[in-house]
C-alpha cells in the first residue's frame, strides 16, 4: 500500500513536465499538482492507519535488484559481495515523515496556487514541486542508503532548480549554484560513509546497519568514522555549522519553496537520516556527541544572526538553521524521538511563518525589508493572527506545539547530564523568542511607514492562500499535544509510537525537576517576548540602536554574518578559482603551446616541401617545356604560310629529284 505514496507525485511530474508547458491550461496544471499530492497524502493516512493496526512494526517492499552482486566489488578481506535492492521500508519513522511531507506539502501546494497566480511558468513550478515531493518521499521511504541517496540527490536537485526559479535574476541563479555546490561537499561525505558501511558490514540496509551496529559488528573507530561521514552529508543538507551559508541565500527562491524545501522538509533530511541510523550513532558515542554539540552551537549561532537581519525571509532562514540545530541537539543527547517530534512541529509552525511572510510580501508587492514595513496589523488581520500563532509556537510559548517539542529536547539534554548543551539551548530559546517578536513588532506594529504599504491600498491575501495558513495555525497550536509529556499528565504518545524505529529513551528526571525546567524555559520564552516588546514597541527600537552603537564592532561582525561568507569566498571559492585559472593558464601556455608548436612545425615542413615542389619539380617540367619552345621557335620560321613559298619548295624538290634521277641513271 505505502508504495503508492511516492507514485502519485511521480505521475504528476510526468504529466505536468511532459504536457504542462504546451497543452494544459493553468487550472489543469494546478489541479494535477495539488491532486497528486492530495492523493499521496491520502495514501499516507491510509498506510498510517494500517500501521497502527498491524502487528508488524515495519513493512518492506522490494521492487527488484538494483545493483547486482557482480557489480559491487568490495575491498579484499571485506564482506562477501552483495547486491543492492530497490527496496522501500515503511515504519513509524517513515510514517511520520510521509505524513509531514505530504500533509504540509499539500497545504503549500494549495497556497502556491494563489501565490504563483501571476507567474508565467506555472507548469515548470508545479512540475518541480511535485518532483521534489517525489524525491523527498523516496528519501524517507528508501530501505537502504543507496535508495535513500536517490531521494537525497533528488531533493538537492529540486532545491537548486527552485532556488533558481527566477533564473534571469543573477542573485537567484548564484544562490542556486551556492546551495548545490555546498550540498555537494556534504553529499561527498554521505557517499564515503555509505561506501565505508558497505565495505565493512557488507550491507547498507538501514535496519541491518542498525542491528549490526548494536550487535557490535563494527569497531568503535569504524562506526565513528562512518557516522561522522554520514553526518557531514546531514550537515550540508540541513545547513548546520559549517555548511549553513547556502540556506539564507536560498531565500531568493519563491516563498512557497522556502516554506516547503528550506523549512519544512528537505533541510530536515539530515535529522531524519541521523534518527534513522540511531543505533550506529549511539554505538559510536563520539559521533553522537559531535552531533549534539554542532546542533547546540548552530542553534545559538544562527539565532544571533537572526537578531540583526532586516530581510523578513532571512530572519526566518536563520531561525530555520537555529531550529534544525535544536533537532540535532535532541538527537545528540540520545532523544531521537524528541528530535523527530521537533522536526514535525517545526514543519508546522515554520512553514506557517514562511507562508505568512509570503502573504505579507505578496500584499506589499515584493517588499521584504522589515525597515520599510510597519503597522500591517490593521491591513492584514488574518496574516497577522496566523503569524502571531506561528511566532508564539516557535518561541516556545506554553501550550503551543513548539513548547512541547523544544522542552522535551531541553529536558533530555539536562536529564542526560549535557549541561553545557542544555545551557546553549536555553539561551537559544530566549534569542528565538526575541528575534521572532522583533520581526512581528517591526512588521505589524508601529506607524505605517512610507513605502508601498502606505501609498497603495494593501489587500489581504485571497482565501486560497489564507485557508492553508489557518490549517497550519491550527496544527501549530494542537500539534504538540500528541507528545504531551508524563509530567503534564500525558503519555508521550508520539515517542511511544516512534519506539520501533528510534528505540526507547527514558528521561531520568524527577517530576519536580522536569516541571521546573519546563517553567524555566517558558519563563525564558516570555522574557524574550517581553524584551522585544519593550525594545521595539515601547521604546521604538531605541535601545537596540543604542546597543548597536555602543557595541558597534560586535554589531558589525554579527550583521556581516561573522564574515563567514567572506572567508569562504576568500579561501574556498577564490582558491578554487585561482586553481582553475592556473590550470587554464597551464592549458593555454603549455598544452596549447605544444599543440600550436606541432602545428607550426608541420607548417614549416610543408612550406619547405612546397618550395621544393615549386622550384625543383616544376622547374624541371617547365625547363623541358622551355627547351622545346626554343628549339621549335627556330624551326617554325620555315612555315611562312605563303602559298608561293611552298610552291617554290615543291619545284625545287622536283628539280632536285630530277637531277638525282638524271645523274644516277
Amino acid at each position, binding site marked *: 500500500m505505502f508504495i503508492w505514496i511516492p507514485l502519485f507525485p511521480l505521475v504528476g511530474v510526468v504529466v505536468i513536465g511532459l504536457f504542462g508547458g504546451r497543452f494544459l491550461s493553468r487550472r489543469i496544471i494546478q489541479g494535477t499538482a495539488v491532486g497528486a499530492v492530495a492523493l499521496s497524502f491520502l495514501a499516507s493516512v491510509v498506510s498510517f492507519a494500517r500501521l497502527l493496526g498491524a502487528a508488524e512494526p515495519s513493512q518492506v517492499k522490494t521492487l527488484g535488484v538494483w545493483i547486482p552482486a557482480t557489480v559491487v566489488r568490495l575491498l579484499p578481506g571485506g564482506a562477501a559481495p552483495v547486491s543492492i535492492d530497490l527496496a522501500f521500508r515503511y515504519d513509524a519513522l517513515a510514517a511520520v515523515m510521509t505524513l509531514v511531507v505530504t500533509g504540509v506539502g499539500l497545504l503549500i501546494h494549495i497556497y502556491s496556487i494563489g501565490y504563483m497566480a501571476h507567474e508565467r511558468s506555472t507548469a515548470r513550478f508545479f512540475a518541480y514541486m511535485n518532483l521534489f515531493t517525489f524525491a523527498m518521499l523516496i528519501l524517507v521511504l528508501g530501505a537502504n542508503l543507496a535508495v535513500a541517496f536517490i531521494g537525497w540527490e533528488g531533493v538537492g536537485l529540486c532545491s537548486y532548480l527552485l532556488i533558481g526559479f527566477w533564473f534571469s535574476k543573477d542573485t537567484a541563479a548564484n544562490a542556486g549554484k551556492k546551495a548545490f555546490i555546498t550540498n555537494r561537499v556534504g553529499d561527498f561525505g554521505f557517499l564515503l560513509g555509505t561506501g565505508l558501511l558497505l565495505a565493512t558490514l557488507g550491507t547498507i540496509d538501514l535496519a541491518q546497519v542498525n542491528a549490526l551496529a548494536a550487535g557490535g559488528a563494527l569497531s568503535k573507530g569504524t562506526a565513528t568514522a562512518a557516522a561522522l561521514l554520514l553526518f557531514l552529508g546531514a550537515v550540508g543538507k540541513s545547513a548546520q555549522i559549517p555548511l549553513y551559508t547556502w540556506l539564507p541565500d536560498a531565500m531568493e527562491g519563491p516563498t512557497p519553496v522556502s516554506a516547503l524545501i528550506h523549512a519544512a522538509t528537505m533541510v530536515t533530511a539530515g535529522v531524519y537520516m541521523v534518527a534513522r541510523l540511531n543505533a550506529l550513532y549511539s554505538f559510536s558515542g563520539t559521533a553522537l556527541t559531535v552531533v549534539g554539540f554542532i546542533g547546540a552551537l548552530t542553534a545559538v549561532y544562527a539565532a544571533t544572526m537572526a537578531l540583526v537581519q532586516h530581510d523578513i525571509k532571512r530572519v526566518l532562514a536563520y531561525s530555520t538553521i537555529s531550529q534544525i540545530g535544536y533537532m540535532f541537539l535532541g538527537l545528540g543527547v540520545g532523544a531521537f524521538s524528541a528530535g523527530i517530534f521537533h522536526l514535525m512541529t517545526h514543519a508546522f509552525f515554520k512553514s506557517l511563518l514562511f507562508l505568512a511572510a509570503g502573504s505579507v510580501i505578496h500584499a506589499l508587492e515584493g517588499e521584504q525589508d522589515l525597515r520599510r514595513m510597519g503597522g500591517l496589523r490593521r491591513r492584514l488581520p488574518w496574516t497577522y493572527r496566523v503569524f502571531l500563532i506561528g511566532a508564539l509556537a516557535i518561541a516556545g510559548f506554553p501550550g503551543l506545539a513548539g513548547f512541547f517539542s523544544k522542552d522535551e529536547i531541553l529536558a533530555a539534554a539536562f536529564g542526560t547530564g549535557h549541561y553545557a548543551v542544555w545551557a546553549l539551548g536555553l539561551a537559544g530559546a530566549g534569542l528565538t523568542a526575541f528575534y521572532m517578536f522583533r520581526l512581528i513588532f517591526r512588521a505589524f506594529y508601529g506607524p505605517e511607514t512610507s513605502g508601498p504599504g502606505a501609498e497603495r491600498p494593501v489587500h489581504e491575501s485571497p482565501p486560497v492562500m489564507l485557508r492553508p495558513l489557518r490549517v497550519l495555525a491550527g496544527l501549530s497550536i494542537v500539534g504538540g499535544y500528541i507528545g504531551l509529556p508524563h509530567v503534564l499528565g500525558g503519555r508521550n504518545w508520539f515517542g511511544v509510537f516512534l519506539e520501533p524505529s528510534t528505540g526507547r529513551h527514558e528521561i531520568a528526571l524527577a517530576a519536580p525537576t522536569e516541571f521546573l525546567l519546563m517553567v524555566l524555559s517558558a519563563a525564558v520564552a516570555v522574557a524574550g517576548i517581553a524584551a522585544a516588546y519593550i525594545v521595539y514597541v515601547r521604546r521604538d527600537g531605541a535601545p537596540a540602536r543604542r546597543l548597536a552603537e555602543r557595541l558597534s564592532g560586535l554589531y558589525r561582525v554579527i550583521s556581516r554574518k561573522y564574515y563567514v561568507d567572506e572567508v569562504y569566498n576568500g579561501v574556498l571559492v577564490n582558491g578554487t578559482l585561482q586553481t582553475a585559472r592556473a590550470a587554464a593558464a597551464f592549458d593555454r601556455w603549455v598544452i596549447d603551446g605544444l599543440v600550436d608548436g606541432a602545428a607550426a612545425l608541420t607548417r614549416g615542413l610543408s612550406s619547405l616541401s612546397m618550395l621544393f615542389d615549386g622550384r625543383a619539380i616544376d622547374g624541371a617540367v617547365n625547363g623541358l617545356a622551355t627547351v622545346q619552345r626554343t628549339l621549335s621557335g627556330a624551326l617554325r620560321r*620555315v612555315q611562312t*604560310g605563303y*602559298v608561293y613559298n611552298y610552291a617554290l619548295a615543291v619545284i625545287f624538290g622536283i628539280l632536285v629529284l630530277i637531277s638525282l634521277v638524271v645523274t644516277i641513271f
Partner: protein
Amino acid sequence: MIPINAVLGLGLLLFCLGLFGVLFRKNLVIMLMSLELLLNGINVILIGLGRQAGTARGSIFALFVIVMAVSEAAVGFALVLAYFRQNKTYDIDRLRKLRG
C-alpha cells in the same frame, strides 16, 4: 612542217610563263589561270614529241591532261569562290593560316 625545236620552244615558253604566274602573282584567279598555261605548255611538248615519234601516244596523254586540268579548274575555282565569300579578297598574302 613546223620544226620540232619551234614546238618545244613554244612549250617551254608557255611552261615558264605559267610557272612565273603561279610563283609570283598574288591573285588567286590569275594563279589558277597560270596553272592552266603551265599544263598547256606540257601538252604542247607532249603532242610535238608524239608527232616526232610518229605515234598517237603523246596526243592521247595530252587528252588525259586536259581532262585532269578541267576538273582541277572546277575544284580550284570552287575553292577560290568559297575563299572570296569569306574574306572578300583574292589576295594570296592574306591566306597564311599555315604559318608556324
